[in-house]
């Protein structure tokens, strides 16, 4: 996919997220919208190795979503990538659905580990990376997505120490640095900075990217695969609620769902790329 196609894909994923949330009438809005470009880069920018027709393919990369509450973006991305039919997206959070409120590995192809309690995913990713690199000498890569807010959890730092000690170079963590969490801005709730220096002191290589520049995200991911004997953290600076003007930067939209009217407004925002495309008004 070229740059334009990737941007269109991210936008299509954002629309699906809004429609899923409107249908479900519950779920998180800001995080999934903010990470649509990162997920597009991972699955459509040639970063993650996968075969949607063979989700158990031995050579596949592992993707672990530690901040599992943003799963609508993962579900939409996996559906676009062909892991399951797109029509299933509308079942999000409904009784009997494969698409649980937080991901359940037994019901969704492409999801390697269930999650929902913050701070746990990085440890799991470490275990996978350890097995591939230290024990089986295999080339499968491990991609772990985390949020900035979940870095309040002590377990994240236990895992960060572990990855540094064992030089898990085959692990790339992508942190959604959107600066918000439920109670407010991350630096007000519990200051996390200096994140780069903290991770470097734990033995990680750290890259920072504009989390909405898909080319930049792809480049950083590819670069992370060239780093010798160190795990890599990519701090993706994102705008929570990206693409929907009235949600952007609003921490009140972290765990909120658009009502019908807000949803229509949001979809219009995405269709017109936040007013840049005027044809709709004509």
């Amino acid at each position, binding site marked *: 996919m070229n740059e334009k196609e990737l941007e269109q894909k991210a936008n299509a994923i954002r629309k699906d997220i809004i429609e899923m949330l409107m249908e479900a009438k519950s779920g998180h809005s800001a995080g999934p919208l903010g990470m649509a470009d990162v997920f597009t880069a991972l699955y459509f920018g040639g970063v993650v190795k996968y075969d949607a027709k063979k989700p158990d393919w031995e050579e596949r990369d592992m993707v672990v979503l530690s901040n599992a509450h943003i799963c609508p973006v993962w579900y939409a991305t996996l559906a676009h990538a062909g892991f399951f039919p797109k029509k299933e997206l509308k079942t999000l959070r409904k009784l009997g659905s494969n698409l649980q409120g937080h991901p359940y590995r037994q019901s969704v192809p492409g999801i390697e580990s269930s999650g929902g309690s913050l701070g746990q995913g990085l440890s799991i990713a470490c275990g996978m990376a350890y097995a591939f690199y230290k024990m089986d000498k295999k080339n499968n890569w491990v991609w772990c997505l985390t949020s900035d807010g979940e870095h309040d959890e002590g*377990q994240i730092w236990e895992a960060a120490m572990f990855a540094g000690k064992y030089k898990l170079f085959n692990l790339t963590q992508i942190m959604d640095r959107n600066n918000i969490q439920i109670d407010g801005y991350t630096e007000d709730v519990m200051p996390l900075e200096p994140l780069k220096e903290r991770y470097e002191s734990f033995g990680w290589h750290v890259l920072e990217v504009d989390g909405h520049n898909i080319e930049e995200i792809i480049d950083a991911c590819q670069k992370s695969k060239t780093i010798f004997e160190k795990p890599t953290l990519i701090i993706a600076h994102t705008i929570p609620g990206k693409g929907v003007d009235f949600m952007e930067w609003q921490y009140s939209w972290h765990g909120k769902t658009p009502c019908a009217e807000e949803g229509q407004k949001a979809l219009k925002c995405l269709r017109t790329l936040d007013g840049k495309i005027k044809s709709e008004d004509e």
Partner: protein
Amino acid sequence: MDLIKNVYQKEKLEQKPTRDGYGEGLVELGKKNPNIVVLGADLTASTRCDWFQKEFPDRFIEVGIAEQNLVGVAVGLSLVGKVPFASTYAVFCPGRNWDQIRISVAYNEANVKLTGAHAGVSVGEDGATHQGLEDIAIARCLPNMTVIAPCDMIETKKATIAAGEMVGPAYLRFAREATPVFTTDQTPFKIGRAEIFREGKDVALIACGPTVHEALVAANELEKEGISAAVVNNHTIKPMDEKTIIEIAQKTGAVVTAEDHQVMGGMGSAVCEVLSKNHPVPIEMIGVLDRFGESGKPDELMEVFGLTAKYIKEAVKKVLNRK
């Protein structure tokens, strides 16, 4: 039942810590299955994982004093085909890291084996903080979790090997102090099957862990007083062998449970859950009664908490009066 000779003469029995059985079981498993991995959290020697570490250094992972990460790393290993054993004390696992066990292990149906050493009062002098008296309760309430409390060193070895060969999350608890070795290599052991170690018709003593031996001693002494007591080694607390438990209750009409754990939520509670629904009989429960432990020699503590044969006999008399 195939038990050791002199089983009722405690002073003549060899005493070995159950954790030694864990160490031996791990080495045997490691030889059979190259996917067995052991994780230690700065308690490698005292959980006997060092025996495995010496044989298979490439398959031993030190995570430091970090029990939450211990479990997470184990889950990651299991999701790519390894069979990890995560080892520390019961107070820390499942104590310290219960949410990680709930989500990363149990909900994930990860093939992870959790082991809690130094469970019960047998850690003695270390006192309340290190005596794992709640681990059965918090492990058995988790969906998908198998919970096993073997009765001696030989059974611990069998349980370790069986846990490594089954697929799915399991928790095994061990004691610290040496306890009588009274089973043999021939004593049957199968996860999910309670073993009747002694037949009896007046009352059934249902026990797990080192208190199984106390129950046997109690039954032997009760016989001299004309009371016929059956003894059941109920090592698998979950999934419980409901059939055996119901049948023995039907046969005897009275039950005493005994365990080295809080009565609240423990093995005895699980027995009550089965019997109250299927075949209610009078039950007395031996265990720790809603209090923390304290420092002391393990046998002194067994006395203070009322976990010995003497107290089991008293409970039998009480339960027989209620029949």
